[in-house]
């Protein structure tokens, strides 16, 4: 009996993932409504349940467990990006236009600031060579910029692992922190969502955080965040590393 069950799920991983995530959503919205009296949004609870489930696995979270392998496809970058693009249907082109300049500024400030703040903290925590601190600083941009920079600069794999971990921590903090902090930073309109996307930059963290705050803001944040990783990959191993090299 269990064998048949496992075989069916193994062959239909994505379909099982639909069922499983549907169940998580149902549970989360129920908890939100009846336990927290809607004070914590259902989406936020669902994301936190998701993150906790990720502890059951290793590198690929819960999808490391065979019957949940379909979660990797459902939560993978292909469907994620496809759905993010679809959210553009709800975006207002005029609002994007008027936030264009602020969005561009926020991208450069976001990458610059994340990198150098990361560098500074890494330096004070005992890392002194320019390559290592540049890699950790790049990881403070996103978990993709970190390894790209580290590989380009030829640092050891444990430093690369730290940079990836830094980026993942950022994603998680953005995911959980955004709905909590949104009010105090005026994150309640498309304009500030565009800026938010450019400053935080981790597409997954930005979109998950905004989804938990107000799903209407997702397309605006996603629009700028999607340029962030590319900009980081461009600046961190080149110009920024060069600046560091002048100092150290």
């Amino acid at each position: 009996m269990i064998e048949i069950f496992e075989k069916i799920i193994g062959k239909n991983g994505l379909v099982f993932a639909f069922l499983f995530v549907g169940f998580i959503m149902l549970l989360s919205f129920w908890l939100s409504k009846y336990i927290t009296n809607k004070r914590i949004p259902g989406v936020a609870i669902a994301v936190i349940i998701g993150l906790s489930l990720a502890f059951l696995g290793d590198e690929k979270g819960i999808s490391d467990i065979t019957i949940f392998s379909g979660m990797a496809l459902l939560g993978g970058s292909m469907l994620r990006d496809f759905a993010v693009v679809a959210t553009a249907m709800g975006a207002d082109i005029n609002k994007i236009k008027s936030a264009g300049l602020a969005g561009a500024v926020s991208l450069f400030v976001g990458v610059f600031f994340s990198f150098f703040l990361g560098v500074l903290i890494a330096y004070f925590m005992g890392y002194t060579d320019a390559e290592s601190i540049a890699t950790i600083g790049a990881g403070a941009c996103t978990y993709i910029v970190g390894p790209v920079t580290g590989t380009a600069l030829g640092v050891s794999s444990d430093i690369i692992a730290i940079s990836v971990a830094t980026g993942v921590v950022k994603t998680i903090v953005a995911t959980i922190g955004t709905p909590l902090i949104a009010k105090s930073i005026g994150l309640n309109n498309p304009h500030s969502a565009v800026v938010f996307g450019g400053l935080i930059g981790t597409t997954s963290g930005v979109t998950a955080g905004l989804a938990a705050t107000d799903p209407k803001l997702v397309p605006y944040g996603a629009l700028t965040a999607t340029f962030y990783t590319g900009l980081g990959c461009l600046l961190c191993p080149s110009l920024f590393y060069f600046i560091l090299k002048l100092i150290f």
Partner: protein
Amino acid sequence: MKIYGVALLALCFLTGKVLGNLLGKLIGINSDVGGVGFAMLLLIVANAFMKKKGWMETATTNGILFWSSMYIPIIVAMAATLNVKAAVSGGLVALVVGVIVTLVAFYLVPLIAKIGQKEPLNSPEK
């Protein structure tokens, strides 16, 4: 038909990805720079154009809106497949840098948003 909407979304998605990769190549990094952003802009423009022409039927729109509404479940699945163990075991540095950088970035939002918001005030005519 709904598939027209899904196909339009796929067209914008793939075209955006191509543009993103071309831009990446142009600036010398072999990755996607803003592909999703280009795709979103394409979809917005295509939607506006087709609406004007009267080609955008409700069923077509619904094909796109379905994927838009799948976004949150997908994010939940993504959260469940993150390498959270690495985030925790990456040591104190990863934790401290990740938390501080993100928190400070949060508080830069109102600052930069202010700079931009002068824009529509200076040029109110659209």
